[in-house]
């Protein structure tokens, strides 16, 4: 019956974490709100993946697969993000969709 007990324990941890993230959201922490929320989400996800999904006792291939998926999606974020982080955008003060047809009267 150890199995059920462990599930119950994990469930309890998840609930505690949920309560923590819920209540922290009401504190004004600025950037740290986001940080805490996502850190807790990551911990919750890790609990589910490791204990409910048995990643811990999964084969090596499975662990590698999980890692590669995470790695690839973070690549998408990091590399595309590096473009956004370093791009100097001068927003154009033009372009409003409702006037595309009407505004320009210049003849070819």
């Amino acid at each position, binding site marked *: 019956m150890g*199995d*059920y007990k462990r*599930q*119950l324990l*994990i*469930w309890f941890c*998840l*609930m505690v974490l*949920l309560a923590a*993230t*819920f209540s922290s*959201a*009401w*504190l*004004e*922490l600025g950037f740290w*709100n*986001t940080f805490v*929320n*996502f850190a*807790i*989400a990551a911990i*919750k*996800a890790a609990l*589910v*993946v490791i*204990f*409910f*999904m048995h990643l811990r006792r*999964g*084969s090596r*291939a*499975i662990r590698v*697969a*999980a890692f*590669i*998926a*995470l790695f*690839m*999606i973070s690549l*998408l*974020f990091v590399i*595309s*993000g590096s473009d*956004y982080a370093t791009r100097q955008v001068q927003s154009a003060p033009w372009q409003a969709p409702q006037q595309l047809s009407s505004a320009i009267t210049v003849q070819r």
Partner: protein
Amino acid sequence: MNTEAMQIAEQFDSAAQQREAATFGMWIFLATELMFFGPLFFGYLYGRTHFGEAFGAASRHTDIALGTINTTVLLTSSAAIASAAAARRLGATRLAMRLLFVTAALGTLFLVLKGIEYRHEWQEHLVPGLRFSFAPQYTDGAEIFFFLYFVLTGLHAVHLCAGIVLTLFFALHLRRENLLFANEEKIEIAALYWHFVDVVWIFLYPMLYLIERAGG
């Protein structure tokens, strides 16, 4: 271990090989699913960094009470299906069946609550493209937020529906004592899928409900 004889498909040599292939296949599928959500998460990151205040303001219009209850429901359902898989492994098929029904019921409850939320949002003119109005200074950003909100939660709901059907399917097989079909391996794999849907929600919850809940 499982005492009943496993059905082994003809391309496999042994039950162990079949089990390994099926489990690994499910994990690969989940990797695909994760990448499937990727553009949405990245789109969210784009919006969050470009329309920070608007996202905060829009997020405060989501229903945090229902969202939090739903998170509880889904986390509990994950624990239920994990226990169901454990029960099936230990041979307690009646218990496994009941837990699977509980899981499916919790999943359905989640969808019902989500539906109520959607109704609120419709009433509050928060459905982009169809019925949307928001404080003018945040219109663009808030519309993008709710666009992503509906796509993300909608897609999640579709996945959850699939999960519910899957869970009910195995629960009914167990009720008919079709033990050879609803074996440990398959229920374990269905549970993997369910947990993945749960993990997606674990991230959606702070992304959609919690950002700047305390105010700007």
